[in-house]
């Protein structure tokens, strides 16, 4: 019974509709779309501002952030949303009996290889999210939901690039 549950996933189309409804609810409740890289940025800004305030004052990146965001950088909707995401994901994993420490990877590669490439991919994605003013959630998903042209372009290029480069990295997966 337990095992069955842990292998039973939602239909992806149904999951997509539900994600859309979450976005709708976020816009309705918080007046803002969803996002994730923004929370990481808040954490980075907060860390730099408290460890190296002189650097934060001098750098245009941090200056721009503090000018456009009032109050403490961690006191932002996205930071709390991310806390909620972690809590919700944990509860959902607990509900389905999937809470285990493990690295999920293709059987043909090692866990170490998977983690190194995940780290590399994360770095590129973080870099890209700063260039594109948001990640898949903030720029593409939330942007497209309000018919922002930038959102569509971001989405096309995130998935387009992935499609174009998939051939070269296929051995990491299959």
């Amino acid at each position: 019974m337990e095992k069955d549950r842990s292998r039973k996933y939602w239909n992806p189309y149904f999951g997509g509709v539900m994600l859309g409804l979450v976005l709708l609810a976020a816009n309705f409740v918080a007046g803002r779309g969803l996002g994730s890289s923004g929370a990481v940025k808040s954490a980075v800004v907060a860390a730099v501002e408290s460890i190296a305030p002189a650097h934060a004052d001098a750098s245009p990146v941090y200056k721009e952030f503090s000018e456009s965001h009032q109050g403490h950088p961690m006191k932002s909707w996205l930071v709390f949303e991310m806390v909620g995401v972690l809590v919700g994901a944990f509860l959902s994993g607990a509900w389905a009996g999937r809470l285990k420490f493990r690295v999920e990877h293709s059987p043909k590669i090692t866990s170490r290889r998977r983690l190194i490439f995940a780290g590399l991919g994360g770095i590129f994605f973080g870099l890209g999210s700063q260039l594109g003013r948001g990640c898949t959630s903030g720029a593409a998903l939330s942007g497209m939901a309000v018919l922002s042209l930038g959102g569509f372009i971001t989405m096309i290029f995130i998935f387009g690039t992935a499609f174009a480069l998939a051939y070269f990295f296929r051995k990491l997966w299959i």
Partner: protein
Amino acid sequence: MTEDLIVSGRMNHLIDPVLEVWEWQIPSYLFLGGLAAGILFFAGLTWLRGKEAEHPAAVRRAPLVVPFLLIFGLLFLFLDLKHKLYFWRLYLTLKMAAPMSWGAWVLLLITPLSFIWAALYIRDMIPQWDWRFDFLKRLEHFFNQNKKYLAWSMVLLSLVLGIYTGILFSAFNGRPLWNTSILGPLFLVSGMSGGAAVVVMLSRSHAERHYFARVDLLMIAIELVLIIHMFMGFLSSTQTQIDAARLFLGGDYTAPFWIFVVGLGLLMPAILEIMEMRNRKIPWIAAPILVLFGGIMLRFIIAFAGQESHWIL
């Protein structure tokens, strides 16, 4: 010589408009003290109920942590003192109406008790332990024979210690947020919840973990009731207390309090514990860690928000 008659804590220097005196030391100490009280309470009570064999973590393992909790707690308390070298003056007087006096004396009694209880079970941790001197062996024998009195004093004194960690705030009428008698029981129950969480963390038996998870669930339920009543009390009181409550109902502490204390520290572990009882596979360490996290946050938030709450309309 002019003589001042102090009729209110408000007459103290630095009270109005906001207090900026207590930093991390006091809330950290209150957390450690409350936790120590919780662990000792369950250790004494479980032993008195004759359940040592069933709940070894509560009676034997968890109390081994307490001396360290109290050592660090007292160190933090000491660090907070302005005139550190005069701390001993607390022990030249006993003021029934002063919570600090109660606290100082209770700590003086319960700290050695916790050392003795831990010493009686030290072989659980270090099996080849040997008391070098004969008089220590005789002492061990003496305390083993009189364990009943030891356990009773531990239960009673830990209740006093647990309540005192809250009364330390609530007796201080200089701050409207602290000036509620609910803080005593709230901090006591929160400390007990932390104690049960530590037992769950240290237990090696499934049955004991489940039992203390249930105990913890009860404590969480009581805490929620107390928090609700605390706000009901504030909101039906004077304008200054209504303002104090507003710090948590739309003010600066709304998000940290409701998310970290109530959400992550109370509701989330409660949900996890209920799920675990229904035999969902959950890492059993998650709920106790959240409970302890909530306990720390509760004390820090009440300490900081309390200093900000004021009497000026």
